[in-house]
């Protein structure tokens, strides 16, 4: 295993898929000549040229719709949203054209498109730039949603997403790009992680922390503290994919520990965790020793101030406090 940053692992995944399939094309604002606003695509334009790595104007509805149209013809566009927050100007194309065209055509069409980019708060860019839309899009059947937390996962999942024949909305995190972790060596074969499989990132016995994306890191940190300071042993389950969702893994951990705290960077109304809590209370009604609790982003638009921004987001401190209410 090598140590790579999340950004490098992601780029490697993109690069490998560009090499594997000539129908893969990367598009978005500043992805080519500028090397990407967050440098995810750095070097790819130099390597692959104008045809495969394409800069677009600031027209998200236009170029994402264009990608969807091209995908109907068998192109496999990987579209970067500079921020996932900019989905708001392309929403119709994403939910109606990518999400519904297969259904409305009775299965005649499929859209093998990936839309990717960072979806997170915590970078001081304020309310309009800090939307966290995993739950928003997972609500639309026809769409798949992925939110990887580690370098190995981001590589394996981007590759699976590009090969998937349905539209996959791939949500990264600006604050993870620089984090590092082990990634399988190239000699060990194609590193592809199927969508729909959660990953138990830490094993414990007393309580289940269930999270995705950067919240997994907070959950792991909280689990450490809980173990050390409170002798509470936690499973940390990383959902990795939101839709398809690994319900079996969720129910398994809860049936083992009988208590769950969900960590979710979304707001509480409509977040992924509302769905997961609903599933757990339904399927594990007799297993639960306490209500399912959640740690979400505080329910206001994202505040700018660097002094309190992190307090609005899930963090280890808030998780520990929430766990202690039911442990």
């Amino acid at each position: 295993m090598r140590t790579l940053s999340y950004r490098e692992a992601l780029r490697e995944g993109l690069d490998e898929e560009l090499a594997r399939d000539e129908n893969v094309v990367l598009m978005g604002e500043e992805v080519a000549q500028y090397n990407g606003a967050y440098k995810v695509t750095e070097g790819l334009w130099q390597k692959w040229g104008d045809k495969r790595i394409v800069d677009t104007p600031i027209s998200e509805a236009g170029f994402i719709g264009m990608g969807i149209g091209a995908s109907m013809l068998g192109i496999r566009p990987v579209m970067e949203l500079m921020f996932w927050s900019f989905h708001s100007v392309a929403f119709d194309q994403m939910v109606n054209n990518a999400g519904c065209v297969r259904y409305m055509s009775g299965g005649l069409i499929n859209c093998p498109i990936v839309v990717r980019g960072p979806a997170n708060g915590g970078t001081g860019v304020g309310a309009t730039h800090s939307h966290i839309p995993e739950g928003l899009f997972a609500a639309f059947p026809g769409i798949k949603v992925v939110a990887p937390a580690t370098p190995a996962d981001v590589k394996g999942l981007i590759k699976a997403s590009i090969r998937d024949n349905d539209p996959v909305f791939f949500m990264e995190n600006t604050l993870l790009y620089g984090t590092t972790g082990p990634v399988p060596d190239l000699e060990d074969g194609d590193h592809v992680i199927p969508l729909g499989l959660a990953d138990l990132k830490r094993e414990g016995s007393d309580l289940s922390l269930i999270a995705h994306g950067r919240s997994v890191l907070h959950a792991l940190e909280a689990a450490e503290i809980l173990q050390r300071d409170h002798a509470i042993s936690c499973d940390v389950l990383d959902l990795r994919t939101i839709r398809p969702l690994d319900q079996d893994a969720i129910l398994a951990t809860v049936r083992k520990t009988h208590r769950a705290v969900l960590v979710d960077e979304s707001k509480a109304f409509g977040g992924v965790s509302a769905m997961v809590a609903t599933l757990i209370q339904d399927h594990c009604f007799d297993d639960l020793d306490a209500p399912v609790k959640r740690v979400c982003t505080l329910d206001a638009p994202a505040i700018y101030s660097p002094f309190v921004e992190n307090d609005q987001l899930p963090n280890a401190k808030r998780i520990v406090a929430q766990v202690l209410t039911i442990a």
Partner: protein
Amino acid sequence: MSLADSQYARLDFATSPINRALTAEQKIGLLTQMMRIRKFEQASLKYYNAGRIGGFLHLYIGQESVAVGTISLCTPNDHTITAYRCHGHGLMSGMNMNECMAELFGKATGSAKGKGGSMHLFAPDKNFWGGHGIVAGQTPLGLGLAYGLKYKGIPGVALCYLGDGAVNQGAFHESLNLAALFELPVIYVIENNGYSMGTSQKRSSAYRGCLAQRAEAYDMEWDLVDGSDIYEVRAKTHIAMERARTECRPTILEISTYRYYGHSVADANAKKYRSPEEIENYKNNHDPISTFRTRLIQEGVITAEQADAINKLATEEAAAAVVFADQSPAPSIDDIMKDVYWEVDNQTEAGRTGRHFFND
């Protein structure tokens, strides 16, 4: 419309190369297609009123020359996509009346298995990509078809249709800039029937000469077409298609046309926002079918009796489609959950991993 009136007498587009090349048989083919579309629409109207078709029904009656004229120029490399007023484009693309009517009836034998309905006919195998309900939502998709063709090195053209009311949507503007900037082989065909629902062109759009002229904002070519003359439709569309094919440059074509019925059959105001004279003028003086029928008789290509026979055949074909639709099975409740994900439908490993659906 004054435009149509004034241009009508000016040029004879029968003499343009693409029309001179037509055999008698091909000319009769054009007439036949227009008649088939009209008969299909008349049959749908009847059965919509009888409660056999749900949702909205946007009839193409009056506009037939647009789909027939433009799509008659398409090669197997060319692709089309349009809005919800899509029956004409579907039939002209080669869909048969049975699958179309069955779709309107919501039957499992419909082109989309009864899942899409009247606004959502699709036949990708015939290069027809729908049938889209969100006004102008199809315009970036049309761009994407052109992008795909260029990317694959196929010398084809994407024809993307939209209404005169759709030009004011943001997605269309974004598409135009991208089309011109990326030099994509797309033609945006504005089917200008003068109204978006009850709103006239003047009440919905600000423009100089005409809507197509907005192309200049993107340094793009444009042309105005009298839709009552299918020869003109073909001649001017041909020029735009050649531009797309050989120079990879986009065009906006604005084709003036008219719909005889309301916006949809449910439009109770159809006769309120348009004067009866306006409607009658079109029917009597600009109907694309009777105009072309007369023309072909004048040209000696066809006799009145032959034309009537074709019309009768079309009527019968539509009636048979109604019978087919009527006798076809409805989709089952189980069918509701199919055709959502390709991977699930194809029972791949990916389709079997994780929970895809959240019903209990």
